[in-house]
């Protein structure tokens, strides 16, 4: 079954541009009126981060901070933010992208100085908070990359490739989820689900075992904690193509959290929307699988146990499945990796575990 879908990617750039220009015009008006330019944004300090059960993600509270150029210690970050806004506006207008590191270096050409990349990263987060757009919308991407493979046809919007289409099964290593892919239109797909995998080895195995055919799935490799562009891409697959999402990660508190961040987001991105996929499901490996599939395991370390205690109190982990698995981890005091299935042969995970689990989850 193939469907054609309409992408929102281009209109969104117009909105981002308008928002950035509005910011510039506003500062100019303030200066002309004899007012030191200022801007207000929601505070990102930990006491202003709350979990919203409706949105099923972390959000910022009502507390607002004002950054004003009349305050000496605000002058430098304010100038850096205005420059960054100008820089990303140019990127968007010229339909170019940049990385966090590249932004840090580019500043020097404009006689804007950042002490280190942490400072420029923080200013970009400020700009995200002020405008409400994630940095990917501002055409700034992190360095880390993940990959996608499956029956999905996209149409590029980046300069030089406009209108060019590509099916994501065309390269066996998968396609890097970079700026070009994130901004592409999703044209058509034959898949009916998305499977997200934490580990590279498993992703390769799934491609080799033709999981995309056997299970009619788009495969996504997150390379550990999913980068924001990947989280955004997963959301698009879920929202625009209405595909259910299943996440496979290691059976330990850290793997569990990789799944959770895709589902409910992180506190660090509390100022942003559209990065979460609340309907995605954590499909494994669960603590209970360790016993039922007799998987080779290791004991939990002290840090693992501490982390489990933290997660048990985390509002995002209120769900029945989560609480059950946390308790199970504590009970069996064991953990295992996705690769543990290889003990029973290379295809065991695809032949046995995957169909059983998907069936169990109603897919």
């Amino acid at each position, binding site marked *: 079954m193939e469907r054609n879908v309409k992408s929102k990617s281009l209109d969104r750039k117009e909105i981002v541009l308008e928002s950035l220009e509005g910011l*510039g015009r506003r*500062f*100019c008006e303030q200066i*002309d009126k004899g007012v030191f330019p200022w801007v207000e944004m929601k505070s990102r300090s930990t006491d202003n981060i709350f979990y919203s059960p409706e949105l099923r993600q972390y959000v910022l509270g009502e507390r607002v901070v004002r950054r004003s*150029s009349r305050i000496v210690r605000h*002058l430098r970050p304010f100038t850096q933010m205005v420059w960054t806004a100008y820089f990303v*506006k140019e990127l968007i207008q010229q339909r170019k992208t940049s990385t966090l590191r590249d932004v840090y270096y580019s500043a020097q050409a404009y006689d804007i100085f950042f002490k280190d990349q942490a400072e420029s990263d923080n200013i970009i987060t400020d700009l995200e908070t002020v405008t409400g757009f994630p940095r990917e919308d501002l055409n700034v991407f992190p360095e880390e990359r993940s990959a996608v493979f499956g029956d999905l046809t996209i149409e590029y919007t980046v300069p030089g490739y406009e209108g060019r289409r590509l099916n994501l099964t065309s390269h066996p290593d998968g396609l890097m989820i970079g700026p070009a892919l994130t901004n592409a239109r999703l044209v058509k797909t034959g898949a009916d689900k998305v499977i997200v995998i934490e580990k590279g080895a498993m992703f390769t195995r799934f491609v080799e075992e033709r999981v995309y055919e056997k299970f009619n799935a788009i495969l996504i490799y997150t390379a550990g904690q999913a980068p924001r562009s990947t989280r955004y891409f997963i959301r698009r697959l879920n929202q625009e193509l209405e595909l259910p999402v299943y996440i496979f990660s290691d059976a330990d508190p850290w793997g569990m959290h990789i799944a959770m961040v895709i589902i409910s987001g992180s506190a660090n991105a509390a100022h942003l929307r559209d990065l979460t996929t609340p309907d995605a499901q954590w499909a494994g490996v669960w603590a209970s699988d360790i016993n039922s599939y007799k998987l080779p395991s290791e004991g939990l370390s002290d840090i693992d146990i501490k982390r489990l205690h933290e997660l048990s109190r985390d509002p995002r982990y209120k769900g029945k499945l989560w609480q059950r698995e946390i308790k199970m981890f504590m009970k069996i005091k064991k953990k295992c990796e996705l690769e543990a299935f290889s003990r029973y042969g290379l295809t065991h995970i695809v032949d046995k575990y995957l169909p059983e689990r998907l069936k169990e989850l109603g897919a």
Partner: protein
Amino acid sequence: MAILYGQITTNKPVRIISSTGGSRIFKYVLMIDIEKNRPVILDRKVQKNRWKWHGTIVEFHLEGDYPKAMPRILEYLKLTAIVNPYANITFVDPRGRLYRFERKSEEVPPPPVETLPHPHGVDVETLQRIIRSTSCTNMLNFMKEHFHRVGEQTARQFLKFAGIDERLNPKRLRPNDLVDLVRAMKSFNEFLPPDANCLSPIGEDLMRTGILKELEPRFMAVSQRKPSAYSGHPFIVEVAIAYGGKVPTRNDITLYRFANKIPLMYDESGDVSWKILRSINWRRYGVSPGMPIAVLVHLCSTKIPYKTVGKELIADIPEISREILNGIREVARRLRRYLMRRKQVERQRRRLTIFSRYLPKIATFSAQLGGLKEMPDINKLYKRQMVFRDYETGNSYTDGEAFNAEPYKTILVMAKNKHESNSVILRVLGLTGSRWRVLIPEVTLEAGAEFYEMLTKKVRLVKIQVKSAARNKPGIFEAFIDGLSE
């Protein structure tokens, strides 16, 4: 002392030439009769003073280790120059080098006046000497005649207190009576306190002149304490504090001590002033270690209470140490005000520098971000106006461009003299109503020196004026005025 030391080490006479500027010049060659403590004049000449020369030349020989003593000798002369700024001092050292300390004042404080001893300060030895030479035949006249601030009434009251007949002839007092009399004098509280008119302090103005010429400090405060007395001896304490300029930078505050205009060079740590200086919590006055600060203490008295015969350290007399402490506190409070203000000005300057660096960038990038062709005008927020650029100063004041101060809350004036050797003088004026008033009076900027100051008065216009410090010696002047509407 020096002459005595010269004589016992070299056995050579001293040559003294002196004139007060009258018609004659006196030349003496003499030695000291050490046993009788009297001069032995070997030669005496009187010469016509055709050129109205005045001054004193003292030439003598002494044995010493000059390379080792040199810094102390020069220090001694410098300190002498500070407390005697009306004197030209010339010193030719054994290596033939000439040192000159030029006078900066023509004014000489009135010299000390001879005075009678105050009864509180008299000992048996002194009393005996007075009795030996007196012509008084009764105790009443004796008291009136020979003691400071004793009149008829006080003398009567005292003799009654001491149980001595007014008509008794002082020469008939027996040794035991003398001891009793001295005791009575000390314990009688009705004597008027000694009068300090006989003393010759330096005075605040001359002290300022002396410090300015030898230390060239960036700030100084001088205080002359009210006259006081201890044990019948009147005294006046004069205290000064100097900061910056040629004041040496040491870990501790530099202390300069003087007694009757004589610098005290040795045994500093035993001196009362040193003890007091150490007891003060300088941090309270904004002073931190390593600042170039000097404290000067001058004690002027009919009797300096030296601790030792070397006459180098002053004893801790409560009356005196109280005055020294209060004097130092007073000048230290003024220093604190100065330091705090400098700190504030420095903070404002740094603040303005930050605004000047970032505001133009904010304006530029905001305009480009907003897609606007014209830059917004940041002058309403912050303005820097150059009012002199590489200007060669003239002999009289020249006005700089006026700065419109009305939109701004903080106004900072910055100036620099870029010349290699010539000094300039600047002042800052402000227009209030229709009158220009001096906001910052004459400031001398030496070659290469910078100046910055914050204006505290609200004015409409500000302007800087500048001229050369010396005739036909122009400096190169540059000045900015900064305004910030915050």
